[in-house]
């Protein structure tokens, strides 16, 4: 009790003193950047997810080959969720002169629950969003169907037993994914008109979908509820499986945001460690005094810990306050960018701040404080009695453990964590030894301290281990910042590249073998790149290793769905360059043996199959069995035709195949398109631009978000660097006053100070630039799976910013001491 009273008295009386304020600020900054970055990350992820929900046209979708029982809808409605249903199936449609294959999508009135449908009044007019679905006797149809059927908007077409007016061109619907099944031209129809067509009979192949939207947690509980109810043939999708393309971008963005959190935590740790050191150095006299007055070691330690706790509480308070403020400002600035109806930050944010402080404080401050409590009371009689510091290994280990625990709480990404934590550990050890080495070698300059810069360099050595510790702190802060810069640059470049000029924006589907040559000619004549034709064969999987696919047990629900659906098969001599073999081998180009098949990684995982397994398919009434010879990773970002299953050529050659192709046509170059559609009306031309646009928008948002978070972390990091430099300044301030008092010119004091900082900055900069390049390379290639390009100019920039920042901050921090009369400094000491 006495301890607490004493400690709180001491705390409140000493709150004014510099070192306490510095420490509170360090904690406040740590908490603020953690809460703000954490909050921003949350918000951005949520907003990206909401956007991704557009791809489903809902927050949740249940698809089934059977009609959706009305009980499922009622359940959702009773939970307060929005619902819509849709049915889709392929059918042949007729105009007065032509016919064509189309996919009917019949929807109920609330469709789409997320995103908007866009239509145009005819082929040439501008599209606009609508908030309704077609009237009962009307349909909206894809542009290509107008060509196929040779009709205009306003003409009538017959679908089954009914006649419809084609009242608008369907330009965009949120859930037009790039799956090939849905790439046939679409007709959007009011579900009320469907029964009259008479197309839905027993045995027709209809996809029934129930769309759900509402509050996140309600949707989640509905989803859990339904999981137990729905039959095996039905499948629940949430946005995370809606599009692998945007998913990859979203995942990378999340990883990047995780990275920024890791880096903020890291920087906070450094700030706390450095301010704790300063706290310790300034309090040694005080502790010695307490002990000389008879305070026991326990009491001293308790006092320090209690004060630290109070510092922590005040720091968390101000940090959360500041964090809230920053959040508020940022989210106000960004309401346009992000969906606005996101949960406000609340108690959780505060908890995060407290948790962070609770773990970081002891982790990074405790060794200094332990050292402080070991101060010998003899210090009251002889100034140079210093407590022996705890071993670097122990300090490092405690810091590392607390860091890892905290980071694991925030970021569950073990790969990312282990790369960074191990990388940073290696770098800090190297920094420490470099510092010690410099302290040794620069000491030799001491003899000729005539020139002020030599005096400055010799100071590095004179401070010995202190210099080494500074080099570690500066170096780590720099490494963290450079790493973030490098990764950000890589990521943005990669995205620009992936979605840049020349990304295929049209798919041609249903090309017959005889049409290949003619299509090629049309495209070549218009300077478009001659496309590759990829064969497509529809089939059904019947057995895996002789076991019926219907009876087999799958590790993932998606596996069952993949195995049981109608499959699109392809065959090839060479692998698509956007794929990568991760197991097994691709066949020789002239392979002529028994059928082999290469399967996509996630499909293999979800179906639970491996190299050497036999897959049996039913193709046009004939059974064929192929052995899995390789497992591929597919870059879904590439926008080229990709398949889960690719066979060796001989295996499928004899089956009737159609071909698909992707191509890039410049915007406005509609001549080629028209020519294609007029000459080959049976070939479907699918415009990918709206989808590309959707992906582009998501990625653009992500990019902006990343820039903002990056900027924020950068500012936080630079502040840490500043406070780290500042925390070393006390001694130098006194020295430079002394130097001036004994007659050294202001300019020379400055030169000696700056040369000391330059040496430290250079050492920290070189190692930081190198270390962060290596880390960035590891993270880029292992995690983001992008090619890392070593950038010499960034490396040089890293080093120069190291020197620049350390010197600049060093100057700023000591300017006052250099400017003011030395007597002021000496008096106050």
């Amino acid at each position, binding site marked *: 009790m006495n301890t607490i009273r*004493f400690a709180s008295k001491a705390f409140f009386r*000493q709150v004014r003193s510099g070192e306490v304020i510095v420490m509170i600020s360090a904690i406040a900054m740590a908490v603020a950047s953690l809460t703000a970055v954490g909050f921003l990350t949350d918000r951005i992820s949520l907003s990206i997810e909401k956007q991704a929900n557009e791809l489903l046209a809902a927050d949740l979708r249940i698809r089934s080959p059977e009609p959706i029982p009305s009980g499922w809808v009622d359940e959702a409605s009773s939970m307060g969720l929005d619902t819509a249903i849709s049915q889709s199936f392929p059918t042949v449609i007729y105009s007065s002169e032509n016919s064509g294959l189309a996919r009917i999508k019949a929807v109920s009135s609330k469709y789409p629950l997320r995103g908007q449908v866009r239509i145009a009044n005819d082929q040439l007019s501008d599209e606009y969003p609508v908030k309704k679905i077609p009237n009962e006797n009307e349909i909206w149809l894809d542009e290509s169907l107008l060509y196929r059927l040779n009709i205009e908007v306003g003409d009538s077409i017959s679908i089954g037993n009914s006649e419809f007016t084609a009242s608008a061109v369907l330009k965009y619907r949120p859930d037009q994914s790039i799956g090939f099944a849905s790439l046939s031209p679409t007709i959007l129809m009011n579900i009320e008109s469907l029964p009259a067509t008479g197309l839905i009979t027993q045995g027709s192949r209809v996809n029934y979908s129930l769309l759900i939207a509402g509050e996140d947690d309600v949707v989640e509980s509905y989803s859990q509820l339904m999981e137990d109810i729905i039959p095996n043939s039905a499948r629940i999708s949430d946005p995370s499986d809606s599009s692998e393309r945007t998913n990859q971008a979203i995942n990378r963005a999340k990883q990047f945001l995780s990275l920024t959190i890791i880096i903020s935590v890291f920087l906070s740790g450094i700030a706390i460690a450095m301010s704790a050191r300063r706290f310790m150095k300034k309090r040694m006299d005080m502790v010695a*005094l307490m002990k*000389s*007055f*008879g305070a*026991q070691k326990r009491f001293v330690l308790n006092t320090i810990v209690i004060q630290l706790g109070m510092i922590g509480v005040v720091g968390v308070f101000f940090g959360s306050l500041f964090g809230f403020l920053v959040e508020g400002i940022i989210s106000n600035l960004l309401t346009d960018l992000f969906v606005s109806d996101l949960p406000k930050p609340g108690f959780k944010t505060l908890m995060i701040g407290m948790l962070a402080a609770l773990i970081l404080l002891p982790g990074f401050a405790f060794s200094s404080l332990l050292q402080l409590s070991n101060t*010998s009371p003899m210090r*009251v009689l002889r100034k140079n009695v210093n407590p022996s510091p705890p071993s670097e290994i122990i300090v490092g280990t405690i810091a590392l453990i607390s860091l890892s625990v905290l980071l694991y709480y925030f970021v569950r990404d073990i790969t990312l964590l282990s790369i960074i934590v191990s990388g940073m550990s290696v770098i800090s050890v190297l920094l420490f030894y470099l510092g010690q080495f410099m302290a040794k070698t620069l000491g030799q300059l001491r003899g000729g301290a005539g020139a002020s810069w030599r005096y400055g360099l010799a100071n590095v050595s004179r401070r010995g281990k202190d210099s080494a510790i500074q080099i570690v702190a500066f170096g780590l802060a720099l490494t963290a910042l450079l790493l973030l810069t490098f990764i950000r640059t890589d990521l943005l470049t990669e995205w620009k590249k992936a979605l840049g000029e020349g990304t295929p924006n049209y798919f041609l589907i249903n090309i017959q073998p005889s049409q290949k040559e003619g299509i090629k000619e049309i495209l070549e004549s218009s300077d478009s790149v001659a496309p590759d034709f990829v064969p497509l064969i529809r089939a059904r999987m019947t057995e895996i290793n002789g076991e019926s696919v219907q009876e087999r047990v799958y590790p993932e629900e998606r596996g069952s769905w993949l195995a049981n659906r109608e499959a699109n098969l392809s065959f090839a001599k060479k692998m698509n360059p956007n794929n990568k073999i991760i197991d097994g081998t691709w066949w020789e180009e002239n392979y002529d043996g028994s059928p082999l098949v290469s399967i996509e990684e996630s499909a293999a995982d979800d179906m639970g199959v491996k190299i050497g397994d036999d897959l049996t398919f039913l193709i046009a009434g004939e059974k064929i069995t192929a052995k899995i010879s390789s497992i591929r990773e597919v870059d879904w970002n590439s926008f080229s035709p990709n398949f889960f299953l690719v066979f060796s050529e001989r295996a499928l050659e004899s089956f009737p195949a159609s071909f698909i192709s992707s191509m890039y046509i410049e915007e406005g170059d509609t001549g080629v398109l028209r020519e294609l559609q007029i000459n080959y009306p049976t070939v479907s031309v699918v415009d990918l631009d709206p989808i590309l646009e959707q992906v582009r928008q998501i990625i653009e948002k992500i990019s902006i978000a990343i820039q903002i978070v990056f900027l924020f972390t950068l500012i936080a990091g630079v502040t840490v660097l500043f406070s780290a430099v500042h925390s070393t300044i006390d001694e130098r301030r006194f020295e430079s006053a002394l130097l001036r008092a004994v007659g050294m010119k202001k300019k020379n004091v400055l030169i000696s100070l700056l040369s000391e900082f330059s040496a430290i900055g250079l050492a920290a900069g070189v190692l930081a630039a190198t270390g962060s390049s290596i880390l960035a390379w590891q993270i880029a290639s292992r995690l983001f799976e992008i090619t890392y390009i070593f950038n010499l100019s960034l490396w040089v920039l890293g080093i120069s910013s190291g020197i620049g920042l350390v010197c600049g901050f060093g100057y700023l921090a000591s300017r006052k001491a250099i400017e003011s009369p030395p007597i002021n400094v000496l*008096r106050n000491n």
Partner: protein
Amino acid sequence: MNSFSPKKDSLFKLKNVNKIVTSPEGMLTILSDISFEISRGETIAIVGASGAGKSTLLGLMAGLDKPSGGEIILNNNNLVALNEDQRAEIRANNIGFVFQSFHLIPSLNAIENVMFPLELSGKENARHRASEILQGMGMKDRVTHYPHQLSGGEKQRVAIARAFAGEPSVLFADEPTGNLDAKTGKNIIETMFALNKTSSTTLILVTHDKKLAEMCDREILLEAGKLVSDKAIQK
């Protein structure tokens, strides 16, 4: 109170005290074979050149550090046999300090500095006691001043007030006038001796100020870590 009964009133007994430290240059003997006794109420001056080992000896007697050999008995407690915390407890109840460089806590004002050791040992009425003693020393209008607002002499007065506030039985002063000009120093010394009289404290004073030493009952001279003379001062 000056009724001598040496056996009963023996306060300190040092027997063959050594202090040896290991430094980068090798073993260094700072004190060797120091023995003497101090009775309660005495005023002792420890004198000697700079580096003779005075502060080290003071530190050992106050239990701030342990000797490498020998015995230091304070109030029948052998400090050598006690651990750090036990020695601290003895300090808390018996010992006050005045230092050459004052050692005021810069973030506390004058009265808070005086209260500091009182609060540390959980004494009641700390503020009242501190204010009383500061007033008695003519520091009434300085009580809320911070150390950087005080002159050297005023700082040392605060330090003396702080040392006496706890009513210690022994007061150690390590060159209390070393950082002060002659006049202020004299002033401070007079204050200290006056307080010592009223509170019958044993005063152990390290100094190389001849005048100051002469005000004490006894002078112990150290040279290079050895006790070379120990004599009563004739007044």
